Each structure stands twice: as structure tokens, then as C-alpha cells.
């Protein structure tokens, strides 16, 4: 474990920080993600407060579809944490089922979002149409890219990456926990995007 070139303390907590290096790393990454989305939310506030008039999200966007997507994403957060809990209970087949569900729900979210985008394009509503649509597409587009990123990581952990469970179960659990932290963050961003863009 301590041979040169290997990253140490990925399964056991580092004696100085009390957490694994992987967990410290993912939290630093999430902190940078907060700044990325924070900058766009800040741009939204600037655009809205500076505009002579601003449309109500619910007058232009599909609230029932977005509500459905909120429930889909919340459910996927639960299945993700259940996937991790299944590994903690050493039930690998349950882990696969929950992780599979998480990926399926992520795809569902993208399909619903695709319908929403398609509907907007059909009515010739593009990012260039207005400041509202510009920030709407920028925020939801960036969030959608994060959902795609989550699907890629979770699919790796469901299929080829899961071989690690047999050789290094603790390290594998750590990876699933880090992927989970990222996935919950993606859910958390949507929790704010939904009321800000659709309801206010």
C-alpha cells in the first residue's frame, strides 16, 4: 500500500485530517463547483435586478414537468445513498440494483429535460431570445452536463469499476461514497434551480 507512486490514505483516514484523501479531494472539488454555480446564480441576480421587467418563470416554463424532474432527482439521491448503504451491509447485488436505478433515474431526468428544451426550440425560444432564456439555458444546460457526468461515473462504478469490490472493498466503497457526494450535490443545485427559475 505504501509503495511509491500510490496515493495513500484512500481507504483509511489520514491521521492529520481525519478523513480519507479521496473525501478531502471530492469536497475541495465540490467547493469549486459551488463557486461555478454561485457565479451563474450571481449573474442571474444581476440580470434580474437590473432588468426593467422580468417574466415569472411559471408563465414561460413547464412547472409540472420540472416538479416531476425534482421528484426524479430526489429519488435518485435516495437510491444513490442506498447503493452505498448496501455496500456497507456487504450486499453487492442490492448495490447493483440501487446503482442501476440511480442511472435510470438520471436518464429519466435528461429525457424530461429534453422534452422541455424541444418544446422551447419548437416555439423558437433560444438562449438569444431574451436574458431570461439566456440564463435559463446556461444554468439548466450546465446542470444537465453535470447529470451526464454523474451517469458516466456511476456507470463505471456499476460495470467495469465494480471489479474492485472483490479485491479492495473499502476502497470501492470510498469511490461510491465520493460519487454519491457529487451526485447529491447535483441534486442540491437543482433544489435551488427549480424555485428560482420555474416558480419565482
Amino acid at each position: 500500500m505504501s509503495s511509491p507512486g500510490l496515493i495513500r490514505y484512500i481507504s483509511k483516514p489520514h491521521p492529520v485530517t481525519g478523513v480519507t484523501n479521496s473525501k478531502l479531494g471530492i469536497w475541495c472539488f465540490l467547493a469549486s463547483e459551488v463557486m461555478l454555480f454561485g457565479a451563474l446564480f450571481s449573474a442571474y441576480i444581476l440580470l434580474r435586478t437590473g432588468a426593467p421587467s422580468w417574466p415569472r418563470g411559471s408563465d414561460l416554463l413547464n412547472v409540472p414537468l420540472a416538479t416531476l424532474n425534482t421528484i426524479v432527482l430526489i429519488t435518485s439521491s435516495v437510491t444513490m445513498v442506498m447503493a452505498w448503504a448496501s455496500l456497507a451491509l456487504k450486499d453487492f447485488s442490492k448495490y447493483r440494483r440501487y446503482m442501476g436505478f440511480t442511472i435510470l433515474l438520471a436518464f429519466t431526468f435528461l429525457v424530461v429535460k429534453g422534452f422541455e428544451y424541444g418544446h422551447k426550440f419548437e416555439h423558437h425560444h433560444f438562449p438569444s431570445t431574451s436574458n431570461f432564456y439566456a440564463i435559463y439555458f446556461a444554468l439548466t444546460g450546465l446542470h444537465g452536463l453535470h447529470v451526464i457526468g454523474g451517469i458516466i461515473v456511476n456507470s463505471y462504478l456499476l460495470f467495469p469499476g465494480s471489479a474492485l469490490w472483490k479485491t479492495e472493498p473499502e476502497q470501492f466503497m470510498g469511490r461510491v461514497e465520493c460519487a454519491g457526494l457529487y451526485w447529491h450535490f447535483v441534486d442540491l443545485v437543482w433544489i435551488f434551480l427549480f424555485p428560482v427559475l420555474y416558480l419565482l
Partner: protein
Amino acid sequence: MEHSETEIKKHVKVYISVFAALAVLTVVTVAVSYLRLPFHQAVIVALSIATLKASLVALFFMHLISEKQIIFSILLLTAIIVAGLFFLPVASV
């Protein structure tokens, strides 16, 4: 984070309760939006519910409730910088 079987089973029960709370809060926030409250009140209600939902996700799903000091230090620094980021546009208006 405790990994004993009984502890994990306790966690699972908490996850289910949190899920139910998140679903109910989602319905509440949508229902309130149909009341067409004055804008300032609507912002306060919507953002309060969103903050409550986000706290539930962070505390229980992201295990912040039992996390180590170093993670909170990173988050505190992030919160201070992001607060500055939000204050800039508000202050410039």
C-alpha cells in the same frame, strides 16, 4: 462514519424519512407558488423551503451531520467567498 450493521440499518430508516420530507416540501413549494404571493414574500418562502431541502440532503445524504472538522473548514471558506459573490451584484444595484 459508523459502518456496523445496526448503524447502517438505522441510517437507511433516516434516508427514507428524509426522502419523504423532501417530496412533501417539493409539493409545498409548488402549491405555495400557485397562491401568487407578493414577490418579496414568494422569494422568502421559496428560498426558505429550498434551503431546508438542501440542508436535509447535505446533512443526511452527504453525511455532514457526522463529518470531520476539516470538511466544515472547507465549507466555511466556500460559504464566505460565495456570500461575497452574491453580495457584489446586490450591492451594485
